[in-house]
C-alpha cells in the first residue's frame, strides 16, 4: 500500500474548520452524506443493492445456494461475507488477495448482520445436519470516497432485504429471505478531538481514530469496532453510541424502502 499523500494545507484546513464546528463539504458533525439505495441492481444475484453514500459507491450482491450446515448449528443457514477493494475504486487499492483492510471491512459488516440476527437462519434449514441455504454477501467497492464500513453495511442490508431464497432449485417455491431486524452501522471519526459522522475520504485520511457502532431498530448496540491508531475516551465512545442511535434511525428508513 502506498502511503496516501494529503497535503499539509488540506490537513490544516480540515482541522481548522473542525475546530469551528464546520466540515469541508458543509455538513454538520452529526450529518451523514446523502444515501441513495437502488435495490435489485443485479438480475443474476438473489439479492443486490447499489449504494451511494455521497461519492462513495458500493455494489453488494447476495448469492444464495444449497450447502452444508456447520456441525454445531445443524439446523441453521450459513452467512458468509467477503469484500473486494478493487483497483478501480481507488489509486490506493491493489489487485491481489484480500488486504487486512478488506478483511476487517467484511468482518465488521458481517458482525452487524450476524449479531443482530437480521436473518432468521433457522428458516433457512432444508434438511437438518445435511442441507441448508448459504448466503454469500459480496461487497464490491466501486468508488471510494471514505467510510466504506457504513456504505457496505447499508448495501449488505439492502441486498438482503430484497433477496429471495431460490427454493425452486430444490422443487419448492421461491420465498423472500426471512428478515427480522434492521441493524444500521454509523461510523464516527475523531478529528482534532471532534467527532464527525460518516467521514469522507479527506476526513478519514487525517482522522486519529474511528468508531463504528451498529444499532438495531430498538437502539440497542449489536456491534462495535474501533479502528485507526488513535484513541477515544469513554465520553467520546458514549457520544458515538448516541449519534449512531440517532443518525441510524433516519438512515434505516432509507434502507427499508423498496
Amino acid at each position, binding site marked *: 500500500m502506498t502511503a496516501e499523500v494529503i497535503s499539509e494545507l488540506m490537513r490544516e484546513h480540515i482541522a481548522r474548520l473542525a475546530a469551528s464546528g464546520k466540515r469541508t463539504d458543509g455538513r454538520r458533525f452529526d450529518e451523514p452524506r446523502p444515501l441513495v439505495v437502488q435495490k435489485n441492481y443485479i438480475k443474476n444475484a438473489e439479492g443486490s443493492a447499489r449504494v451511494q453514500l455521497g461519492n462513495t459507491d458500493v455494489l453488494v450482491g447476495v448469492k444464495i445456494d444449497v450447502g452444508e450446515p456447520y456441525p454445531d448449528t445443524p439446523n441453521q443457514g450459513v452467512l458468509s461475507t467477503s469484500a473486494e477493494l478493487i483497483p478501480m475504486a481507488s489509486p490506493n487499492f491493489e489487485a491481489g488477495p484480500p488486504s487486512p483492510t478488506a*478483511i476487517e471491512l467484511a468482518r465488521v459488516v458481517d458482525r452487524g448482520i450476524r449479531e443482530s*440476527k437480521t436473518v432468521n437462519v433457522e428458516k433457512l434449514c432444508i434438511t437438518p445436519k445435511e442441507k441448508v441455504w448459504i448466503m454469500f454477501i459480496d461487497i464490491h467497492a466501486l468508488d471510494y470516497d471514505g467510510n466504506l464500513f457504513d456504505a457496505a453495511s447499508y448495501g449488505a442490508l439492502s441486498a438482503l432485504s430484497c433477496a429471495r431464497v431460490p427454493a425452486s432449485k430444490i422443487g419448492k417455491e421461491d420465498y423472500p429471505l426471512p428478515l427480522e431486524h434492521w441493524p444500521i452501522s454509523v461510523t464516527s471519526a475523531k478529528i482534532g478531538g471532534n467527532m464527525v459522522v460518516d467521514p469522507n475520504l479527506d476526513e478519514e485520511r487525517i482522522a486519529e481514530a474511528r468508531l463504528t457502532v451498529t444499532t438495531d431498530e430498538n437502539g440497542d448496540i449489536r456491534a462495535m*469496532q474501533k479502528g485507526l491508531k488513535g484513541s477515544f475516551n469513554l465520553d467520546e465512545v458514549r457520544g458515538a453510541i448516541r449519534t449512531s442511535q440517532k443518525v441510524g434511525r433516519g438512515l434505516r428508513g432509507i434502507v427499508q424502502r423498496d
Partner: protein
Amino acid sequence: MEDIEHIPKELKLIDAKGIRLDGRRFDELRPIRIEAGVLKKADGSAYLEWGNNKVLAAVYGPREAHPRHLQDPAKALVQCRYNMAPFSVTERKRPGPDRRSVEISKVISEAFASVVFVEQFPRTSVDIFIEVLQADAGTRCAGLTAASVALADAGIPMRDLVASCASGKIGGVVALDLNKDEDNFGEADCPMAIVPRSGEIVLLQMDGHLTADEFDKAMDLSINATKQIYELQRDALRRRYASVAEAAEQEAMREPARSEEPPREMPPDLPPEVDDL
C-alpha cells in the same frame, strides 16, 4: 432474550446467587499469571496464563522494516501477528492466518501504535508476535496484555503499558471476562484495551446485544479490571528486573572495594589476549 433458547436446558450461566459456572461472581477476573522475559532470542517476551488461556508474546525491533516500501520515513511501524496454534482449540485449527487472525492482528497493531514512541525510530518496524497456545475465550485481550509486557521487556520506549480485558452479558447479567462457555452461550462480548494512566481506549470491539446502559456497565467492569491487570503487568516486569537490578547493585557494591586495591599491574611479557571466536 431469544438467544437464551439456544443454550442447552441444563446450562445456567449464572445462578440465582450470582455465581457463574466456574464459581466466579459477575465482577471477578479469572486467575492471571504473567512472566516477563521467557524467550532467549526475542528482544522482549512474556508468557501469560489467563484462566485456561496460555499465550506467548515476543517482540523484535525496532529493526529495519520490510518489505521496504512499507517503511515510514518519519516513524516506526508497529506490526502485530496474532496466531493460534493448531492444537490451541478443541477442533484443530488449520495453521496460518485466517480472517479472524488478520483482523485481530490489525486491531492490536493499531492499539499499540499510539503508545509506542514511533517517531524515535523512523523506517523501522517493531514486530509483535502473539502465539495462542491454549485458547479459552479472551485470547486477544490476553495476547495484547502479554504483548505489552513483552514490549516493555524489549525496552521499547512507550508512554505507558496497555492493559486489556473483555466484559459481556451472560444469562441477562453484565459480567466481566467471559470464559469459553460464557462466550459461546452468552449474549454479548465486548473486548477493550486501555492506556491505564490516561484512560485512552485504544481497542474496542463488541458483538452481541447490549443496551447503551449495559454497555456502560460493561465498560465500568472492564476499566476496573484493567487496573488489576496493569498491576500484574508491572509486577511481572518488576520481578524480571529485580534480579537484574540486584546483580547491578551487588556489582556496584563491589566496585568501590575493588578500587581501593592497588591497581594490578599486567605482566609485561604476556601475549595480548585473542578473542576465540
